[in-house]
Protein backbone atom coordinates (compact mmCIF):
# COMPACT_ATOMS: atom_id res chain seq x y z
CA UNK A 1 0.00 0.00 0.00
CA UNK A 2 1.22 3.47 -0.84
CA UNK A 3 -0.19 6.68 0.46
CA UNK A 4 0.66 10.13 -0.77
CA UNK A 5 -0.68 13.60 -1.20
CA UNK A 6 -1.63 14.66 -4.71
CA UNK A 7 -2.85 18.13 -5.61
CA UNK A 8 -6.23 18.29 -3.88
CA UNK A 9 -6.52 14.73 -2.72
CA UNK A 10 -4.93 11.98 -0.75
CA UNK A 11 -4.19 8.93 -2.84
CA UNK A 12 -4.00 5.46 -1.37
CA UNK A 13 -2.73 3.12 -4.05
CA UNK A 14 -1.65 -0.52 -4.24
CA UNK A 15 -4.45 -1.40 -1.84
CA UNK A 16 -4.58 -5.17 -1.57
CA UNK A 17 -8.00 -6.81 -1.11
CA UNK A 18 -7.48 -7.26 2.63
CA UNK A 19 -6.75 -3.57 3.31
CA UNK A 20 -9.45 -2.52 0.84
CA UNK A 21 -11.91 -4.60 2.85
CA UNK A 22 -10.72 -2.97 6.10
CA UNK A 23 -11.41 0.41 4.54
CA UNK A 24 -14.86 -0.72 3.41
CA UNK A 25 -15.50 -1.66 7.00
CA UNK A 26 -15.10 1.92 8.29
CA UNK A 27 -18.78 2.94 8.06
CA UNK A 28 -20.25 -0.23 9.59
CA UNK A 29 -17.54 -0.26 12.27
CA UNK A 30 -18.41 3.31 13.23
CA UNK A 31 -21.96 2.31 14.08
CA UNK A 32 -22.37 1.96 17.86
CA UNK A 33 -25.82 0.35 17.66
CA UNK A 34 -26.11 -2.75 19.79
CA UNK A 35 -22.90 -1.99 21.68
CA UNK A 36 -23.90 -0.08 24.82
CA UNK A 37 -20.27 0.65 25.79
CA UNK A 38 -19.66 2.20 22.38
CA UNK A 39 -22.89 4.19 22.51
CA UNK A 40 -21.85 5.46 25.93
CA UNK A 41 -18.41 6.45 24.68
CA UNK A 42 -19.61 8.28 21.57
CA UNK A 43 -22.33 10.06 23.49
CA UNK A 44 -20.70 10.63 26.84
CA UNK A 45 -22.34 12.99 29.36
CA UNK A 46 -21.24 16.65 29.33
CA UNK A 47 -21.04 16.91 33.12
CA UNK A 48 -21.17 14.78 36.24
CA UNK A 49 -24.39 13.40 37.73
CA UNK A 50 -24.85 16.42 40.00
CA UNK A 51 -25.57 18.57 36.96
CA UNK A 52 -28.74 16.69 36.11
CA UNK A 53 -30.35 19.63 34.31
CA UNK A 54 -27.37 20.18 32.03
CA UNK A 55 -27.23 16.46 31.21
CA UNK A 56 -30.96 16.28 30.49
CA UNK A 57 -30.88 19.30 28.18
CA UNK A 58 -27.83 17.92 26.45
CA UNK A 59 -29.59 14.62 25.73
CA UNK A 60 -32.55 16.48 24.32
CA UNK A 61 -30.85 19.13 22.19
CA UNK A 62 -27.17 18.38 21.66
CA UNK A 63 -27.08 14.61 21.27
CA UNK A 64 -29.30 14.54 18.17
CA UNK A 65 -27.00 17.15 16.60
CA UNK A 66 -23.96 15.04 17.37
CA UNK A 67 -25.64 11.97 15.86
CA UNK A 68 -26.31 13.90 12.68
CA UNK A 69 -22.74 15.20 12.61
CA UNK A 70 -21.26 11.72 12.98
CA UNK A 71 -23.64 10.23 10.45
CA UNK A 72 -22.84 12.88 7.85
CA UNK A 73 -19.14 12.10 8.23
CA UNK A 74 -19.62 8.34 7.76
CA UNK A 75 -21.87 8.95 4.76
CA UNK A 76 -19.18 11.08 3.12
CA UNK A 77 -16.63 8.34 3.73
CA UNK A 78 -19.03 5.67 2.43
CA UNK A 79 -19.42 7.75 -0.73
CA UNK A 80 -15.63 7.93 -1.25
CA UNK A 81 -15.32 4.20 -0.61
CA UNK A 82 -17.60 3.43 -3.56
CA UNK A 83 -14.44 3.77 -5.68
CA UNK A 84 -13.44 0.39 -4.28
CA UNK A 85 -16.56 -1.30 -5.66
CA UNK A 86 -15.35 -1.44 -9.24
CA UNK A 87 -15.87 -4.28 -11.65
CA UNK A 88 -12.19 -5.20 -11.64
CA UNK A 89 -11.07 -8.65 -10.54
CA UNK A 90 -11.73 -8.95 -6.84
CA UNK A 91 -8.09 -9.78 -6.10
CA UNK A 92 -6.64 -6.85 -7.99
CA UNK A 93 -5.04 -4.00 -6.06
CA UNK A 94 -7.11 -0.85 -5.91
CA UNK A 95 -6.58 2.88 -5.62
CA UNK A 96 -8.61 5.21 -3.46
CA UNK A 97 -8.64 8.97 -3.85
CA UNK A 98 -9.87 11.07 -0.95
CA UNK A 99 -10.64 14.72 -1.78
CA UNK A 100 -8.85 17.06 0.65
CA UNK A 101 -12.17 18.69 1.51
CA UNK A 102 -13.32 15.32 2.89
CA UNK A 103 -10.35 15.10 5.29
CA UNK A 104 -12.40 16.12 8.34
CA UNK A 105 -15.11 13.60 7.54
CA UNK A 106 -12.46 10.88 7.28
CA UNK A 107 -10.85 11.92 10.57
CA UNK A 108 -14.24 11.76 12.26
CA UNK A 109 -15.34 8.45 10.74
CA UNK A 110 -11.99 6.81 11.47
CA UNK A 111 -12.18 8.08 15.04
CA UNK A 112 -15.74 6.86 15.48
CA UNK A 113 -14.76 3.43 14.16
CA UNK A 114 -11.69 3.22 16.42
CA UNK A 115 -13.69 4.23 19.50
CA UNK A 116 -16.53 1.82 18.75
CA UNK A 117 -14.20 -1.12 18.12
CA UNK A 118 -12.12 -0.34 21.23
CA UNK A 119 -15.27 -0.11 23.37
CA UNK A 120 -16.69 -3.31 21.86
CA UNK A 121 -13.56 -5.35 22.66
CA UNK A 122 -12.68 -3.41 25.78
CA UNK A 123 -9.05 -3.15 24.72
CA UNK A 124 -6.60 -2.31 27.47
CA UNK A 125 -4.21 0.64 27.27
CA UNK A 126 -1.40 -1.86 26.85
CA UNK A 127 -3.06 -3.56 23.90
CA UNK A 128 -3.78 -0.22 22.25
CA UNK A 129 -0.16 0.82 22.70
CA UNK A 130 1.22 -2.37 21.20
CA UNK A 131 1.52 -1.43 17.55
CA UNK A 132 3.65 -4.41 16.58
CA UNK A 133 1.35 -7.15 17.77
CA UNK A 134 1.27 -10.06 15.34
CA UNK A 135 0.20 -12.39 13.95
CA UNK A 136 -3.56 -12.01 13.68
CA UNK A 137 -4.94 -15.12 15.29
CA UNK A 138 -8.40 -14.14 16.43
CA UNK A 139 -11.25 -11.76 15.77
CA UNK A 140 -9.92 -9.67 18.67
CA UNK A 141 -6.44 -9.46 17.09
CA UNK A 142 -7.98 -8.47 13.78
CA UNK A 143 -10.01 -5.73 15.46
CA UNK A 144 -6.91 -4.41 17.20
CA UNK A 145 -5.12 -4.36 13.85
CA UNK A 146 -8.11 -2.49 12.42
CA UNK A 147 -7.86 0.13 15.20
CA UNK A 148 -4.15 0.61 14.52
CA UNK A 149 -4.58 0.71 10.74
CA UNK A 150 -7.26 3.37 11.06
CA UNK A 151 -4.98 5.25 13.47
CA UNK A 152 -2.19 5.17 10.88
CA UNK A 153 -4.54 6.68 8.28
CA UNK A 154 -5.61 9.35 10.75
CA UNK A 155 -1.98 10.26 11.40
CA UNK A 156 -1.34 10.63 7.69
CA UNK A 157 -4.42 12.78 7.11
CA UNK A 158 -3.52 14.92 10.13
CA UNK A 159 0.01 15.39 8.90
CA UNK A 160 -1.29 16.47 5.52
CA UNK A 161 -3.87 18.86 6.88
CA UNK A 162 -1.50 19.97 9.69
CA UNK A 163 -4.32 21.34 11.81
CA UNK A 164 -4.21 24.40 9.62
CA UNK A 165 -7.90 25.26 9.72
CA UNK A 166 -8.50 28.59 11.33
CA UNK A 167 -9.76 28.34 14.87
CA UNK A 168 -12.42 30.64 16.29
CA UNK A 169 -11.28 33.85 18.00
CA UNK A 170 -10.96 33.61 21.80
Amino acid at each position, binding site marked *: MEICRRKDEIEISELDPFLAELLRQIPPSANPEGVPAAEQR*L*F*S*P*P*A*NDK*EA*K*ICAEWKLY*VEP*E*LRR*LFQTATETVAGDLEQLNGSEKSFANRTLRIPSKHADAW*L*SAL*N*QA*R*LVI*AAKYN*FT*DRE*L*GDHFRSPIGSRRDLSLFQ*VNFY*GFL*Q*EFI*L*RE*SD*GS*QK*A*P*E*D
Partner: protein
Amino acid sequence: MAQSAAITPFPVTKNAGPATVDRPTIEHETRPEEDLDLPWQVVVHNDPVNLMTYVTMVFQRVFGYPREKAERHMLEVHQKGRSVLWSGMRERAELYVQQLHGYLLLATLEKAG
Protein backbone atom coordinates in the same frame (compact mmCIF):
# COMPACT_ATOMS: atom_id res chain seq x y z
CA MET B 1 1.81 90.48 48.55
CA ALA B 2 -1.03 88.17 48.65
CA GLN B 3 -4.41 89.71 48.97
CA SER B 4 -6.44 88.47 51.84
CA ALA B 5 -9.67 87.12 50.56
CA ALA B 6 -12.79 87.65 52.47
CA ILE B 7 -13.83 84.32 53.86
CA THR B 8 -17.45 83.74 54.27
CA PRO B 9 -17.77 81.18 56.98
CA PHE B 10 -20.07 78.26 56.33
CA PRO B 11 -23.17 79.15 58.23
CA VAL B 12 -23.49 76.94 61.24
CA THR B 13 -26.78 76.95 62.91
CA LYS B 14 -26.32 76.60 66.55
CA ASN B 15 -27.98 73.66 68.18
CA ALA B 16 -28.80 72.15 64.83
CA GLY B 17 -27.27 68.82 65.84
CA PRO B 18 -25.32 66.54 63.55
CA ALA B 19 -26.63 66.25 60.05
CA THR B 20 -27.96 62.79 59.26
CA VAL B 21 -28.31 61.10 55.89
CA ASP B 22 -30.56 58.11 55.43
CA ARG B 23 -28.64 55.00 54.53
CA PRO B 24 -29.65 53.56 51.18
CA THR B 25 -31.59 50.35 51.40
CA ILE B 26 -29.60 47.54 49.88
CA GLU B 27 -31.66 44.63 48.75
CA HIS B 28 -29.94 41.32 49.14
CA GLU B 29 -31.36 38.97 46.57
CA THR B 30 -31.11 35.25 47.01
CA ARG B 31 -30.51 33.61 43.68
CA PRO B 32 -30.08 29.95 42.99
CA GLU B 33 -26.47 28.96 42.66
CA GLU B 34 -26.87 27.95 39.04
CA ASP B 35 -27.86 31.48 38.10
CA LEU B 36 -24.69 32.99 39.43
CA ASP B 37 -21.91 33.59 37.00
CA LEU B 38 -19.53 31.27 38.69
CA PRO B 39 -16.63 30.39 36.50
CA TRP B 40 -17.12 27.09 34.77
CA GLN B 41 -14.31 24.92 33.57
CA VAL B 42 -13.96 22.94 30.38
CA VAL B 43 -12.16 19.75 31.34
CA VAL B 44 -10.80 17.16 28.90
CA HIS B 45 -10.25 13.64 30.21
CA ASN B 46 -7.78 11.01 29.12
CA ASP B 47 -8.79 8.50 26.52
CA PRO B 48 -6.41 5.78 25.34
CA VAL B 49 -7.89 5.65 21.84
CA ASN B 50 -7.65 9.23 20.61
CA LEU B 51 -4.28 9.96 19.03
CA MET B 52 -2.08 12.57 20.67
CA THR B 53 -1.66 14.44 17.39
CA TYR B 54 -5.42 14.43 16.89
CA VAL B 55 -6.09 15.80 20.39
CA THR B 56 -3.51 18.56 19.82
CA MET B 57 -5.17 19.51 16.54
CA VAL B 58 -8.58 19.66 18.19
CA PHE B 59 -7.30 21.99 20.94
CA GLN B 60 -5.81 24.25 18.30
CA ARG B 61 -9.00 24.35 16.30
CA VAL B 62 -11.51 24.71 19.13
CA PHE B 63 -9.63 27.13 21.40
CA GLY B 64 -7.33 28.76 18.88
CA TYR B 65 -4.33 27.81 20.99
CA PRO B 66 -0.88 27.84 19.41
CA ARG B 67 0.60 24.39 18.89
CA GLU B 68 2.90 24.58 21.95
CA LYS B 69 0.03 25.40 24.30
CA ALA B 70 -2.21 22.78 22.71
CA GLU B 71 0.55 20.18 23.12
CA ARG B 72 1.06 21.17 26.77
CA HIS B 73 -2.62 20.55 27.49
CA MET B 74 -2.59 17.31 25.50
CA LEU B 75 0.36 16.04 27.54
CA GLU B 76 -1.36 17.05 30.77
CA VAL B 77 -4.41 15.04 29.73
CA HIS B 78 -2.18 12.11 28.81
CA GLN B 79 -0.05 12.18 31.98
CA LYS B 80 -2.45 13.44 34.65
CA GLY B 81 -5.70 12.11 33.25
CA ARG B 82 -7.30 15.53 32.78
CA SER B 83 -6.62 19.11 31.89
CA VAL B 84 -8.61 22.31 32.34
CA LEU B 85 -8.68 23.84 28.89
CA TRP B 86 -10.70 26.94 29.55
CA SER B 87 -12.74 28.63 32.27
CA GLY B 88 -15.34 31.35 32.15
CA MET B 89 -19.03 31.86 31.56
CA ARG B 90 -21.22 28.79 31.46
CA GLU B 91 -22.77 29.42 28.07
CA ARG B 92 -19.41 29.59 26.33
CA ALA B 93 -18.08 26.64 28.29
CA GLU B 94 -21.08 24.58 27.11
CA LEU B 95 -20.34 25.55 23.55
CA TYR B 96 -16.73 24.42 23.89
CA VAL B 97 -17.77 21.10 25.42
CA GLN B 98 -20.20 20.58 22.55
CA GLN B 99 -17.46 21.25 20.01
CA LEU B 100 -15.09 18.87 21.79
CA HIS B 101 -17.74 16.13 21.77
CA GLY B 102 -18.16 16.79 18.07
CA TYR B 103 -14.51 15.80 17.75
CA LEU B 104 -15.21 12.76 19.97
CA LEU B 105 -13.09 13.91 22.90
CA LEU B 106 -14.12 13.12 26.47
CA ALA B 107 -14.94 16.57 27.77
CA THR B 108 -17.01 17.83 30.66
CA LEU B 109 -18.24 21.06 32.14
CA GLU B 110 -17.40 21.66 35.81
CA LYS B 111 -17.94 24.44 38.30
CA ALA B 112 -14.61 26.01 39.14
CA GLY B 113 -13.37 25.88 42.69
